[in-house]
Every structure is written in structure tokens, then in C-alpha cells.
């Protein structure tokens, strides 16, 4: 697994249409689950985009993952309930991959009391501790945190593993390399998933990194790596299955780099094309290789899917999304707010059980403080 060939992230630009979707070896059930997940995620993101303005009721930054559905779809099939998932700000795909509900997500985006975090976190900081899912809006801190969760699972002999999702931008940060080193050193059960979409906000990877082959660098730290075309959901599923099997077997961390592309803007539903950081030619090339259309045409070709079943799927998902938006809009805001208990836990059940109360004692006030010695 440590052998890897670096694939240029501009792959579709070089090769044109991707023709490599191979369905063999993956059950029809899983193929349809991948397709269903990506369709649901895409429709959700498009609806958020549609509803965001002009009502402005979702008054929080929303980072859409249109075009990057394949990795979350594959994760949804390999993640177990006892696994941990740590996400960055572009969180919706990972959130759904860990089994989060649309109602809790949408109520959170609307800032409502019924949201996943009572409307305190929003899209980019959403978490569901019951499902071991944690988001966060500061780049790369979550990668370090995921390694800590891996340490905890290892020390507790838990069957769970940790998955941490991030982009190429995260690998600019020093702490990323500290985390990779530590995971390799301790052979921690952590899957590092880099969705390399080529840009940190608007800044292309080659403008930020002297050597753009991230896997080569990770490999040098002692973590095995795999590179692949990240819009082929079936291949991503195969790769993540192999990687997680290996991690579950106790063989330590794996780094997977999936080359993909964000068709949506960096943040919000507005088109950020006017910034001029990427060409229409580039966008079109990736649009022609959208993960959903690649899988859909392969499924049609193999007669695993037809127009009627797609229509039925779309209809079901639309109903679920309608319900989630209605739930979110009808829900109340949190009121009243208790700032103190939101920030600090007022109870300490373990200390109550294990510790005695403070004794009366005498402090000898006459004694001298020490003269600190060398070092």
C-alpha cells in the first residue's frame, strides 16, 4: 500500500472524460447506496443554495461541497457507529456520512434550538457527540484532535477507528506534520483523508507548496499513502475499504489522497468566479467528470439503474429535504440562554464519587519560599 504514483490533480483536464469507473467487485446494493448518498447530498446542497437568499434566514457561513460527494459517500459505507469522524468547515458530506439527520442539520443552519448544537455552532462547527462526529472551522486543528481520539481508542482497546477529513490547504500547516509523525510513531488507528481540490479558498496548491506531491511527503514520515481520482465513487469506496480494513487490523494509520474539485464557490451560494482564481475551462472539465454523473452512467450502462428508479429516489429525497426545512423553519430559537452552563459544566459526578471534601488545615505562613536552583 505504500507504493503510490502521484496523479496530477488536473487529471480530467489532461484526459478529458474519465472512463475508468469499474463496478466489478462491489455489490449492487453498495453501488446504489453510493449513488443514493451522492444524490441526496447534492440535492441538499442545491436546496441550501436556493434557500440561502433572499430570505437570509440561514445567517451563517455555509461551505457547500458540490462536486466533492464521492469521498463522503464512500465514507458512509465504511464508517461504523463506534468510529470517530472529524471534519473541517465543509462539513455537510461528512455529517451525513456519519449518519447525522437532515432535520438536526437544517435546524442548526437556521440557528434553532432544535439544531444539532442548539444553533450555537452552525454549518462549520456542527457536531453530534452521540454519533462521534465533530466539525470545526479552524484549519487543521481537527487533524491533531483526531490523532488524540485515535490515541484514546488505542489505549482503550476500542474496535473503533478515527477518520479525519481535510483538504490540501491543511497540509500547509505545521501541526499537520506533527500529527502525521505522531500517528506513525504510535501506530494509531487513524485514516487521513485528503480531498485535494487544488485550492485553499482561492489559492492554488502550487502557489503555496514547493513540492505539491503531498503523498510523497507523508510517506517520508512513515505513513503509507494511496492516491486516486476522487470523483470515481466506486474506486474511492474500494480504496477506503482497504485502508480501513488495514487500520482495523491494527496496522496503523493510512493516508488517502483523493483528487477532486469543488464546483461550488468557496463559501455561500454566490458564484465566486469573478475572483478569477480558476478558469471556466477548468470548471467545465470537472463538471464533465462530476462524481454523480460518472456513477449514474456506469449504473445505467450495467442496467443497475433506470430513469424510473432515479425519479423515485429524487422524489423521496425531495420529501425528506422539504421536511427538514419545514422543521427548521418552524423551530424556535434558544431562549433563555444560560451563558455559564453553555461554557462550563456545573457538575462533576466523577469527582463527587471519588473525592473527599476539603479538610480544615493550617498553613504555616512563616516559611520561606524556596530559592529555585539551576534549570
Amino acid at each position, binding site marked *: 500500500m505504500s507504493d503510490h504514483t502521484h496523479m496530477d490533480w488536473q487529471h480530467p483536464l489532461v484526459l478529458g472524460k474519465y472512463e475508468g469507473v469499474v463496478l466489478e467487485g462491489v455489490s449492487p446494493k453498495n453501488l446504489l447506496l453510493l449513488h443514493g448518498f451522492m444524490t441526496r447530498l447534492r440535492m441538499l446542497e442545491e436546496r441550501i443554495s436556493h434557500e440561502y437568499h433572499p430570505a437570509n434566514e440561514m445567517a451563517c457561513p455555509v461551505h457547500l461541497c458540490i462536486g466533492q460527494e464521492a469521498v463522503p459517500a464512500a465514507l458512509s459505507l465504511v464508517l461504523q457507529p463506534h468510529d*470517530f469522524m*472529524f471534519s473541517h468547515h465543509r462539513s455537510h458530506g461528512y455529517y451525513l456520512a456519519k449518519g447525522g439527520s437532515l432535520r438536526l442539520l437544517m435546524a442548526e443552519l437556521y440557528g434553532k434550538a432544535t*439544531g*444539532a*448544537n*442548539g444553533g*450555537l*455552532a452552525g454549518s462549520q462547527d456542527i*457536531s453530534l*457527540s452521540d454519533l*462521534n462526529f465533530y466539525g*470545526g472551522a*479552524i484549519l487543521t*486543528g481537527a*487533524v*491533531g*484532535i*483526531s*490523532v*488524540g*481520539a485515535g*490515541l*484514546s481508542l488505542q*489505549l*482503550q482497546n476500542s474496535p473503533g477507528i*478515527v477518520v479525519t477529513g481535510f483538504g490540501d490547504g491543511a497540509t500547509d500547516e*505545521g*501541526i499537520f506534520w*506533527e*500529527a502525521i*509523525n*505522531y500517528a506513525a510513531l504510535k501506530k494509531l488507528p487513524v485514516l487521513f483523508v485528503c480531498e485535494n481540490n487544488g485550492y485553499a479558498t482561492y489559492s492554488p496548491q502550487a502557489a503555496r507548496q514547493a513540492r505539491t506531491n503531498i503523498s510523497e511527503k507523508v510517506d517520508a514520515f512513515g505513513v503509507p499513502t494511496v492516491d486516486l481520482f476522487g470523483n470515481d465513487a466506486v474506486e474511492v469506496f474500494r480504496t477506503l475499504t482497504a485502508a480501513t480494513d488495514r487500520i482495523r487490523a491494527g496496522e496503523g494509520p493510512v493516508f488517502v489522497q483523493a483528487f477532486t474539485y469543488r464546483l461550488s464557490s468557496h463559501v455561500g451560494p454566490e458564484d465566486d468566479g469573478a475572483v478569477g482564481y480558476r478558469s471556466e475551462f477548468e470548471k467545465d472539465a470537472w463538471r464533465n467528470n462530476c462524481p454523480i454523473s460518472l456513477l449514474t452512467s456506469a449504473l445505467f450502462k450495467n442496467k443497475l439503474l433506470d430513469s424510473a428508479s432515479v425519479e423515485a429516489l429524487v422524489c423521496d429525497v425531495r420529501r425528506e429535504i422539504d421536511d427538514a426545512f419545514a422543521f427548521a423553519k418552524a423551530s424556535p430559537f434558544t431562549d433563555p440562554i*444560560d451563558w455559564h*452552563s*453553555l*461554557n*462550563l*459544566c456545573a457538575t*462533576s*459526578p*466523577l*469527582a463527587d464519587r*471519588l*473525592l*473527599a*471534601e*476539603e*479538610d480544615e*488545615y*493550617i*498553613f504555616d*505562613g*512563616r*516559611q*520561606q*519560599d*524556596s*530559592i*529555585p536552583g*539551576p534549570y
Partner: protein
Amino acid sequence: MRELTYAQAIQEAQFQAMELCPNVLLLGQLVNYSKAGIFGTTSGLIERFGSDRVQDFPVAESLMTTVAVGAAAAGMRPILVHQRQDFMFYSFDAIANWMALWRFKSGGKSTMPVVIRTVVGKGWGQGPQHSKSVHAWFAHLPGLQVAMPATPHDAKGLLLEAILGENPVLFIEHRSLFSMKGPVPELAYRVRFGRAVVRKAGTDVTLVALGGMIPAAMRAAQLMHTSGINVEVIDPRTIAPLDEQTIFESIHRTRRLIVADPGWRNMGTAAEIIATASEHIGNRWLSPPVRLTLPQSHTPMSKPLEAIYYPDEGAITAAINKMLQIS
């Protein structure tokens, strides 16, 4: 009662917490060197609990703190150790952007039981990158508790309370206190956060002293006593939360307040305590409150300059005398 040094009390708190709770984990550079480790505060831990639970850590403080956050999110109770507070500034992102708001952004559902032990201050030429004490920075953050124990008894009780509690805690240990001896009960006990102690009752001046300033404050109170001035010495023990009531009760009687703070003056803890007290007592001060802090300067290395830099009991008695002359 049995006496232990401050360092031994810290060692005992960790030892007992690790005995009581299998999820307690100690991470830090050199914590596994039993004899020389961290001023003797980690002696015997590696022998008893092994290298899984007492882990030497790479020289990567920002990772260490995020590892603690992740480990706590997945069920552990990590204790981190920084031999100098200066070293932990690499981890400010982990503290300010993750640890302190983990509970908040969960909507008040999650807990974050992490203790960061951090050694501060003074002496033997530590200079500007080995001696900082910036408790005020951390007490400024919502969602983080800050303890500054001044006695072996409080060091043990506050550390046990922190390790087995549910909130992130910055636990500040002053170098000048490590060899100080005091009575320490053998059982595992708690000192609750936000409860000050009156170390010496008095009627003329309230002297609030923090952490490493407590011994000097006690000696100063003794010296003033011989000249007939009754100083009340209050040790808040934790600055976040701060026991405001004990301070209010005292200043109602004395109507004079000096705060001895082993940190810098500007925007500091002494200023915060005086502001809080002033909001409470209004214009009933007998004389303006006084901050007794380090100069607004980085720490000098040389011995004579160190002696000037750190306020001692002489500085405190001088401040008290000046205050009483004014009023």
C-alpha cells in the same frame, strides 16, 4: 498532620487520580524520567502506570494539546505538563479555538476534562523565554478554568478536582513553591474551584495575593503585625472562577485593597480584581486600590536585576505603608 512538599503533593494527586480512574493519562516531555522529571512531580508514575499512561511526548506542543482534546473527546482524562509556560504558547490555537469552546459549540452537551499543568516564574536566570506567567491571558477565555495553588494542600486538592472534574483547567505551578512543605491529608480530597481562603484575618487592609506571591504576602502581613497593622490576606486559589464574595466581604470591613499578582501589570489579573471590587464598593474606598505586579517588562536574566524585578515582602509592606499614609 503529615507534611509534603508542593512537588510531592502534585505527584501524589496524579498518582491517586491515576489509581482511581483508569482513563487518566499523563502526557509531556520528560514526564517518564522518574528521578529528574518535572521538578520531581512525576516521580514513580512511569513505574506504577507504565509508558501507555505516562507518555513522553515529541517536541510538538501544539499537537500535544490537540491530542489531549481528541483523547478527552473519546473518553480519556489527559493531564499535560509543560516545564515552562513559555513552551505551551505553541498550543494557543488548541486552547483558544478548540479546548475552551468544545462544550460551548456542542450546545452545552459535551465535556472537556483536560488539565494543563504549566510551570511559571522565577529565579536562577531563567530570563524572558523561561519565566513568563500569563495567567491573565487564559483567565480571559470563557470556558477555561485557571488554578494558581500556593500551598501543598491546595496543589493536591485542586489538581484532583481538576483531573476528575469535567472542564478544561490550566493549572499554574510556581517554581518558587516546589520545595515548600505543608500539611497534606493522605486521602484523595478535593479543593473546589472558586473558593478563596482567608490565610490571615485582619481589619486594616485587604491583601489579595495570587500563587507565587502568597509566601511573601504572609511574611509581609507578619511584619505589619509587629507594627500594629492588621492585614487580611486572601488567597483566591483559582482566578477563573474567582471567589468575589470573599473579597467583597473583606473590603467591606477594611475598605482598602492591595492585589499582589505575579504577572504583568497592564490588562492583568490585579486590574481585574480591583475593577470587580470597585464596581461592588463604589466610592467607599478609604484609599485608592493598589496593584503590586511585575514591572511592565520582560524578565531580566541577571541576579541583581531579578531581585528588583520580582516584588517581595519589602515591596508589599512599602505599598501598605504608603496606602495607610495616604488615607
